[in-house]
């Protein structure tokens, strides 16, 4: 029978070569599929992975798309390292947007230097509130955070729908479910005038580096890693698990809230019912793709953002249906995670006799 067992040691070479191998395999397999569909395989793969970058404002679009994914992915990778399974980043993202957006709507005439920091801070606090509730439920009632954080995602979404169809609806909006546009001075600075390059594009990599330093170089980070790898050992060592759960949920929630408020003010400009196209769930993939390493999350976020842009490009220039984007992303993730799995484990054919002897 087939058995999967850990290799024990990790090859330095394959650690870096495995993502590249995965990319090559993705190119080959998806190329075959495209060829079977009667499309030029080389050009199609090129359209997915390269063309979005060469388009006008392509890099800018990539940065804006990747920023929330990286920001949330970093927070999630920290939490997951400590075995705190925050699945509800989407809800924290939305609550951040609600709190920050609410400030922007309440003080449209405040000077930009005063209101924008308040908006951002409110966003972070909104995400932390959501994350903190999950932490409290886990610590106080031992409630599984996978369930509670996911359920809070629905609560946040419906709170958003309630607000934009009810009390916060734009009075000039003909009853459509959306708030008024945020006033210009609440939107925050742009890296390039008249673009949607908001400060999140700079903050995301900074946050990643900061959390990497914390995780790898600080005592708190050490405690996180120990808690994730050996919870009993952590308890024997006297690490307070509840404190770590609080920190993990507050940081991952706060970062999701930050991503949410920057998305609302930076690219959307108002609150609408479909503010998050599932960023919080995509960020889970990003976190794992980045091997739960905050620095690894940066390329992972960029890659996932790229495939989304590539999907649009493939529809526009090749007339491929949108479902093909899903197939392409699926193949890419399959090989990335598959190569990773084989990097850390080996598959062996074990005959029944050997097994019995053990």
């Amino acid at each position, binding site marked *: 029978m087939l058995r999967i067992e850990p290799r024990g040691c990790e090859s330095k070479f394959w650690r870096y070569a495995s993502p590249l191998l995965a990319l090559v395999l993705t190119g080959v397999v998806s190329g075959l599929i495209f060829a079977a569909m009667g499309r030029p395989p080389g050009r199609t793969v090129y359209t997915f992975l390269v063309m979005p970058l060469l*388009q*006008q*404002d392509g890099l800018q*679009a990539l940065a*804006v798309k990747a920023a929330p994914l990286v920001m949330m992915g970093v927070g999630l990778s920290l939490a997951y390292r400590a075995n705190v399974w925050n699945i509800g980043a989407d809800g924290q993202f939305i609550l951040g947007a609600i709190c920050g957006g609410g400030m922007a*709507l309440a003080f*449209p005439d405040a000077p930009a230097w005063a209101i924008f920091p308040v908006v951002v801070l409110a966003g972070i606090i909104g995400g932390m509130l959501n994350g903190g509730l999950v932490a409290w439920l886990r610590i106080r009632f031992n409630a599984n955070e996978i369930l509670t954080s996911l359920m809070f995602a629905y609560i946040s979404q419906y709170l958003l*729908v*309630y607000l934009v*169809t*009810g009390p916060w609806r*734009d009075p*000039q909006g*003909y*009853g*459509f*479910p959306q708030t*008024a*546009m945020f*006033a*210009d001075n609440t939107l925050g600075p742009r890296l390039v005038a008249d673009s*949607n390059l908001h400060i999140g594009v700079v903050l995301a990599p900074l946050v990643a580096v900061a959390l990497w330093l914390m995780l790898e170089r600080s005592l708190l980070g050490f405690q996180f890693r120990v808690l994730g790898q050996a919870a009993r050992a952590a308890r024997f060592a006297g690490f307070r698990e509840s404190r770590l759960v609080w920190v993990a949920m507050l940081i991952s929630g706060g970062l999701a809230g930050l991503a949410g408020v920057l*998305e609302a003010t930076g*690219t*959307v*400009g*108002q609150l*609408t*019912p*479909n*503010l998050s*196209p599932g960023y919080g769930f995509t960020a889970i993939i990003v976190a794992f793709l980045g091997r739960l390493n905050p620095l690894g999350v940066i390329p992972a976020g960029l890659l996932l953002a790229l495939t*989304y*842009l590539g999907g*649009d*490009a493939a*529809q*526009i*220039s090749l*007339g491929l*249906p*949108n*479902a093909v984007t899903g197939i392409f992303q699926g193949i890419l993730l399959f090989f990335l995670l598959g190569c990773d799995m084989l990097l850390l484990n080996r598959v062996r054919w074990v005959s029944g006799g050997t097994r019995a002897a053990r």
Partner: protein
Amino acid sequence: MLRRHFTRLAGAGALASAAPALLRPACAAEPLKVGFLYIGPVGDFGWSHQHDLARQAAAEHYGDKIKTTAVESVPEGPDCEKVMNDLAASGHKLIFATSFGYMNYVIAVARRHKDVFYEHATGYKRAANVSTYNIRFYQGRFVQGVIAGKLSKAGLAGYVGSVPVPEVVQGMNAFLLGMQSVNPQARLKFIMINGWYDPPKEGDAAKALIDQGCDIITQHTDSPAPLQAAAGRGIKAFGQATDMAKFAPNTQLTASVDVWTPYYIRRIGDVMAGTWKSTNTWGGFEAGMLKMAPFANMPPAVAALASETEADIASGKSRIFIGPIKDQGGTVKVPAGATMDDAALSSMQWLVEGVEGKLT
């Protein structure tokens, strides 16, 4: 906030003065590139499907004089702005954005690409190079309501709603007014799924309505799921946007069928002739933009009444939102003899007496 709104309108005005210079006939040698954005997959067999049929018809009509590009499943968010930018950058001169939520992004992109013409379905913001167009879906709802009023034994119909925007409110009200025109006691229950295309949610909403005693179902969402849910429970229902009879041949009574083709052909022709102007189009039966799918699964007398109602609406004899109409609280919203005008319809946010449930 108000100021910002007006700045935007003022900007649109400034654009208008620059427009004539932009209206140049397209070069005959090069095909006109026309882009389409869809909210759902073209395989939703509803809203987006119907737009795509019209795109194909227009492509066939003009042959090699135009080249069309369709982008499906474009979310109503910053992504759609990116898609419209890419379409403009790759030489598309006319772009049809076929969902309400694209509105602010259409205006933003149109400001950046002033040599590109935009057509936004179901929205209300226009600019010198942005037109809006929509169908008077409520006319079809009234016809459906008349049928439902005749067929519903409980006098209670279920409405699978999408998002409580005026278009959907008009639909619910028109449906119930149609029902009440033949059964004054008729009532309507509804569930909003807060989206346009979500087959599992749509189906669940239909089942929940049936469980609450509704014995006829209509939908304002894009997939055939509610129709199929009704078929599963053995009750009758209406299709949406396109003739969905093949999904539930023994269930669909009729469907309001959106007819975008003539509009698309005309607007593409306008761009090619250099006569495109920013307009607001809102047509129904009378304009050939809406039609009813064949009346089926009902007694001939009901089918005849439905046909007659359709003809009366088309000729202007029946005006649907004619007083007296009371809202849920019993307040007279439309006095006897008065008719609601388009402006009032476009911002309709109240439900007529007999609709159960609140909008928000």
